[in-house]
Each structure stands twice: as C-alpha cells, then as structure tokens.
C-alpha cells in the first residue's frame, strides 16, 4: 500500500508540473489579448452533490461568479447519495477528489473524515462565521482545531414525517382540507374514511415501506411525537428503543394496515415511487419531509393544487417536541483541491440573505435562516410546514460537540441488524410478530456495541466515556444552545 502512495505522489508532482507549464503557456497567449498583466490561469472547480432540485439556484450563483471571474468555471455533477458515496471512496484512493463536495453517501462522521485528512479549512472562515446567525458553527461539528471547515445551509428545525395529504380526498372524507388530522386517532379515522369512500381503488395511507432506512426515521419521529427524547435520552445517555413511545409508534402504524387503510403495494414502493403513486390520487396521506412539495411542483405539476400538509400526529394532542442536533456542514473543500481560495470565495455566496430566499423558493430543506421563507414565493403548504417546524422542533445537544472522540466511537460501532426501520418493515410484512421483543433486542445490542466501541477507543488512549452522552442541563422543550455545553458537567 505504501508503495502505491509514494509512486502516486511522484506522479502527482509530474502532473502538477505539466499543468503549471501549460498554465504558463496560456498566460503568454492571453496576456497580449486581455492586456492584463496579472497571471490568469484557468481555474476549474469540480463540484459534486446530490441537490438536483437546487441546481438552477446554484448554477445562477456560479454563473454570476464567473462573470466577475472569467477564468473560473465550475464543473458540476449531481449524484444520488448511494452512488456518490462509492464515487467518493474511489476518488479518494485515486487522488481525484472534487474540489467541493457534499457528504451524501459518506456515513463516516465528519470529525473522522477530518482526522483522516479528507478536507481542508475554508480560507475565509472567520468572515463566514461573522455572516451566519449566532451559534451556527460548533467546534466538533463544523469547526476543527479552531478552523472553520464548513457551514450549514439548512435549518435543524425540520422533520421528515410531515403528513402530506390529498386535499380533495380529505375533504370528501369529512375532514378539514386546510388543517388535516392532528392526532393518531384522527389520522386513523381519516385513513379509514378515505378508504371506505374509495371503493377498493383509493386508500387512506401510502408509504414507501421498501425503503427501510426512511421508514425507521418515520418511526423515530412518531416516537418523539409520543414523547420520546429521540434514540438517546440525554438525561441518562441510554438508548430508548425499548421504551413505550417506540412500541406505540409501531403499534399505531400497524393498526393502519390492520384497518385495511394501507395502499397494498406500499411494501414494494420506495420514497420516490411512493410519492409518485400518491400524486396519481390513489391514496390520501403520505409521510414525507418538506421537500415533498418541491418535488411535486417540479415533476408532477398538475397535482400541486391538491397538496395539503399537517403536522406529525401526536397520540392525544399533547404538546411534544421533536429534537435535532445542530445542523452539520453541507459543502466541504477536499484536501486534494488546489484552489481552496476560489472555492471558499464561491462558498461565501451561499451565506447571503438572497441565497436563503432562493433556497426557500426551491422548497427543499428549509434554509438556515427560517425568516427567509416569509420573503420567498412558496407554495402555501411549504409555508405551513415551516410554521409547524418552528412550533415543534427543538435543538438537541451534540455529544460530538462536547467531545470529538465520540465520533471515533461512532466510527468503531458496527451496524446492528435488524435496525429500527428493518424491524418496522418486518412488522408490516408479518415476519416480526413480537416487535417489543425485537425493539428490546435492538436496544440491548446497541448498548453493548457502544460499550464495546468505547472500550476500544479508550484502549487507544483516547478520553471518552458514556458520560459524554449525558447532558444534565438539557430541557426537552428548550433549544440546547451552544452556551449550555459547559453547564452542569
């Protein structure tokens, strides 16, 4: 392995040398024409991400930048997360990483990637920090060793289990098409009513059950809606899969299938095809994130007028909160990039108020500055979704922010199967009959695996313990602001 690296380094220098020579040659040709003495080498920024809906917005930023800096071109490739992960792996080993890329497909926590020399810091980190809302950047999340490596684009105030419904079907079932159902019972009744009125062709609820990972997120959101703090209880640091809310969430979803309200082909649908079938009018309700309306508007335009949204339902109408950790950085500059200054300069364009308004208008994930949504032209359901987020989502503490070694533990942990989504999938398919036992088993295995990983990391001389997951100062109904990280230790 070492041999390969040594040779590669030599080759790289050779390539660099020839590029410099070529640049010099170009200089000789350009200078007389432009009459500018400064060295104007062609700068190409290679950019990879998964944000297909945001491409027009980003392209306009790159075009504007190129008008002011004609020597810079941005070469953009869009991937879906799976493929990008593999592509990044292979690009990393062959020294062909793009200049700027997102983390889609990379499950390894960012602190680990930084430790393995994947990225370099922004060259205008301080300036960017000044432009962002207070507390957007955290050491261990986007700041490492005091340097800013990346910054968030999206707000943490969002969840993936909004109840998107077909307003026509909702109304004909006797429910308010503007607000929709808000409790589990109402949801169940609405689903049943829509199914009954549907005469075997239309069902109350459709979901992409094939996509186990997403299904797990929905179960998690519903459990939080039922009062769970999330997968980890920050007052004790323990995993919570074996607590009541998770079992109740699964029970609730299963009841919909037992009622016959679940669109039968759901078990074969993933998120995309589930959404597509929903848009054809064969089902009333569909859980999805805020980006749903953006996708509908782009791909299934005729359906846009029928889209309504309701919050994630709660068991009985109580006020519960959903928690997300601080937003992570989206775009990172790779350590192999030769133009960090230009890349940083371009990235700075992604922190302006106009950018946030532009983001809001694309209706993908909500922008870091939620107030931008009010100034943007968006579909009413998107505006409502943002409003719902503001009411119900709170900032959770991040163990990594307190102790970066936590990410080492996370990287050491092996996946446990079946995980939450797979258990839910098995419940729907009838393969898992005792889901409480399955959840308990998952919980026990995850606890054991984390303990083992902690031991391994401690064995390497790193300071980390289970206490890093405990935050005594945490209040479920409040944001856990950066200032609170020092309290109550």
């Amino acid at each position, binding site marked *: 392995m070492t041999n390969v690296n040594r040779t590669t380094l030599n080759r790289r220098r050779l390539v660099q040398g020839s590029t410099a020579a070529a640049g010099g040659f170009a200089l000789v040709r350009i200078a007389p024409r432009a009459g500018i003495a400064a060295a104007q080498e062609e700068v190409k920024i290679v950019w990879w991400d998964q944000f297909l809906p945001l491409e027009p917005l980003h392209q306009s930023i790159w075009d504007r930048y190129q008008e002011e800096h004609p020597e810079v071109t941005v070469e953009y490739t869009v991937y879906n997360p799976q493929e990008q992960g593999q592509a990044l792996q292979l*690009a990393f*080993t062959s020294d062909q990483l793009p200049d700027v890329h997102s983390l889609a497909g990379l499950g390894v926590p960012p602190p680990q990637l930084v430790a393995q020399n994947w990225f370099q810091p922004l060259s205008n980190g301080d300036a960017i920090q000044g432009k962002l809302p207070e507390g957007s950047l955290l050491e261990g999340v986007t700041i490492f060793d005091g340097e800013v490596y990346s910054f968030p684009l999206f707000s943490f105030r969002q969840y993936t289990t909004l109840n998107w419904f077909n307003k026509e079907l909702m109304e004909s079932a006797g429910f308010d098409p503007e607000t929709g159902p808000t409790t589990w019972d109402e949801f169940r009744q609405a689903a049943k009513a829509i199914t009954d009125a549907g005469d075997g062709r239309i069902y109350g609820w459709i979901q992409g059950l094939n996509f186990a990972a997403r299904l797990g997120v929905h179960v998690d959101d519903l459990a939080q809606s039922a009062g769970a703090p999330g997968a980890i209880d920050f007052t004790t640091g323990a995993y919570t899969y074996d607590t009541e809310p998770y079992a109740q969430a699964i029970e609730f979803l299963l009841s919909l299938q037992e009622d016959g309200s679940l669109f039968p082909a759901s078990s074969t649908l993933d998120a995309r095809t589930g959404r597509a079938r929903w848009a054809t009018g064969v089902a009333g309700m569909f859980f999805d994130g805020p*980006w749903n309306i953006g996708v509908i508007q782009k791909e299934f335009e*005729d359906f846009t007028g029928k889209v309504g949204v309701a919050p994630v339902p709660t068991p009985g109408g109580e006020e519960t909160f959903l928690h997300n950790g601080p937003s992570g950085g989206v775009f990172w500059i790779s350590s192999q990039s030769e133009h960090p200054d230009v890349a940083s300069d371009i990235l700075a364009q992604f922190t302006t108020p106009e950018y946030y308004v532009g983001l809001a208008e694309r209706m993908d994930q909500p922008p870091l500055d939620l107030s931008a949504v009010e100034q943007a032209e968006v579909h009413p359901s998107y505006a409502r979704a943002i409003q719902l987020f503001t009411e119900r989502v709170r900032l959770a503490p991040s163990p990594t922010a307190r102790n970066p070694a936590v990410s080492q533990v996370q990287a050491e942990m092996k996946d446990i199967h079946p995980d939450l989504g797979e258990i839910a999938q098995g419940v729907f398919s009838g393969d898992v009959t005792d889901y409480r036992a399955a959840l308990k088993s998952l919980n026990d295995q995850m606890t054991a695996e984390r303990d083992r990983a902690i031991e391994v990391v401690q064995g390497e001389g790193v300071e980390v313990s289970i206490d890093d997951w405990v935050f005594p100062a945490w209040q479920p109904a409040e944001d856990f602001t950066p200032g609170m990280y020092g309290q109550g230790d």
Partner: protein
Amino acid sequence: MNRPFSPPSIHKPRSIGLTLQALALAVISLVWMYPFLWLVSASLKDSLEIFVSGLDLIPADWQWNNYARAWNDAGFGRYMLNSIVITTGSVLIVVVRCALTGYVLARYNFIGKRVVVGIFLATIFIPAGYTIIAVMELSQELGLLNTHLGIILALSGGGHVAAVLLYTGYFSRIPRELEEAAVLDGASFFQVFRSIMLPLAGPVTATVSVLTFLSTWNAFFVPLVFTFSRPDLRTLAVGMLAFRGEHSTDWSGAAAAATLSLIPVVLLFMFLQRYFLEGIAGAVKS
C-alpha cells in the same frame, strides 16, 4: 408447452404445426416485449401520467420534449460518441483475445494447459466484488485514468470467461479434416486459424459481440470512475446520472434517455441475427 406433432412428408399438417408454433411464439414475444414497449411509451408521457396510466401504452399527449431534454441534459451527442468508441474497442479486444484463447485451449495440448484452465475455472466463481479499487490503482499507475483506452482495457481485459468458454466449446467441435486439409495445402498455424476456424465460429463471434456490446454499453461504474477528471469522456450510462437526485427522479427524461441508448443495441442485435444462423454444414461438404 407442447411440441406440435408433425407427421412426416405431408405438407399441409406441417404448415399447421408451424403456424401453431408461430402463434405460441407470438404470444411469448408480446409478453417479453411488453416492458420495452412500456419504456418507449413512458418516454413520451410526462412523469405524472406515467404513474396514472399504469400499464396503458398509449400516451395522452406525445411529449417529444422529453427527448430534447434527454439529449441536452444528458449530453447525449458527446456521450453517445464516447459510448460507441469504448464499446467498439471493448468488443474488438474481447472477441480477439477470447477467440485466440478458446482456439488453443480447445484444440491443443501444451505445457501449462492445466494451469491455465484451472485458473480460469477457479476465478469465475468468485463474485465480482470490489475489484474496482484494485483496477483503479493499477490504471492510475499506468497513467490510464481519464482515457478512453483505460476504460476499454478495464472493461475488456478481465473477466469474459463466458466468451472463452463459448469459443473453446465451439472450436473443439470443428472436425480435424478441415484443418488437415488446409495444412496439406500449406497453411501456417495462424492462417489456419484466420481463414478456416474463425469464420466457422461466426455464430459464437456474433453472440460474444452482442453480449459484450450490451454489458459494455450499460457499464456504469468503470466509466464513471475513469472519468472523474474528464467528464467529457463519459458514456451514456454515466450520463443517466443527471436524472436521479436525492429525492426525485425525472422519470420521463430517464425513460427517453434509456430508449435512446437502447436503440443501438437493438439495431446491432437485429443486424447480427443472420450470423447466429451460419452453420458449418457447408464447410464439411467441401
């Protein structure tokens, strides 16, 4: 499925037998063809209609703009050229090297033959795993990354044991008399191969060509990984990336792109069909 019974030497019932066969095959063909027809019809609908109309084949409005979008967004003109170059190169290399190998394996004993056969047989059972990383590193050392040649070699150099096996099987069935006659006429080793054996293996060459064409045309990872720094060298299959993002798929665009990229393969297959039917019957007579 019943084989039609055709009593000998009476013409009428034989043609009834044939008609029955043709009918059976027509039904099978329709079932087999249906998804392809669906793909073509999807390329002429908009995304919503694709899902609303389910299995209906006739589009409501014929959305030719999908093709325009596929052509532009997926960079079809340039990508198609790349695909053609890479696929043609790969087919040539595969046919040549596998025919040569199959020929000697089939008809000669030589020192080391057992080793060669053993290695082939052992390696075909190992699932093609993450060989891509090793291939990439090797190509990087040789300076073959981001070149057409690098992609061609990576796709045609390894694997294709099927082609070798087919050629071996085929060449071993060719009677010795043909070869002996040629040698008596003064043909060299190479001439025997080129002028007698290879032409007789027409059907295998056609088979190998079509299948290699297909797998190379649709190859995604190798062309992707070899063109990170030169996206202008990308192939059609990689170009299809443009239709799938994180949450959404441009269904109608993807269908149009898929149809466009399938046409060459279908045409190639139809064209090569007659080579599937050349026999060695005539050769033995002479």
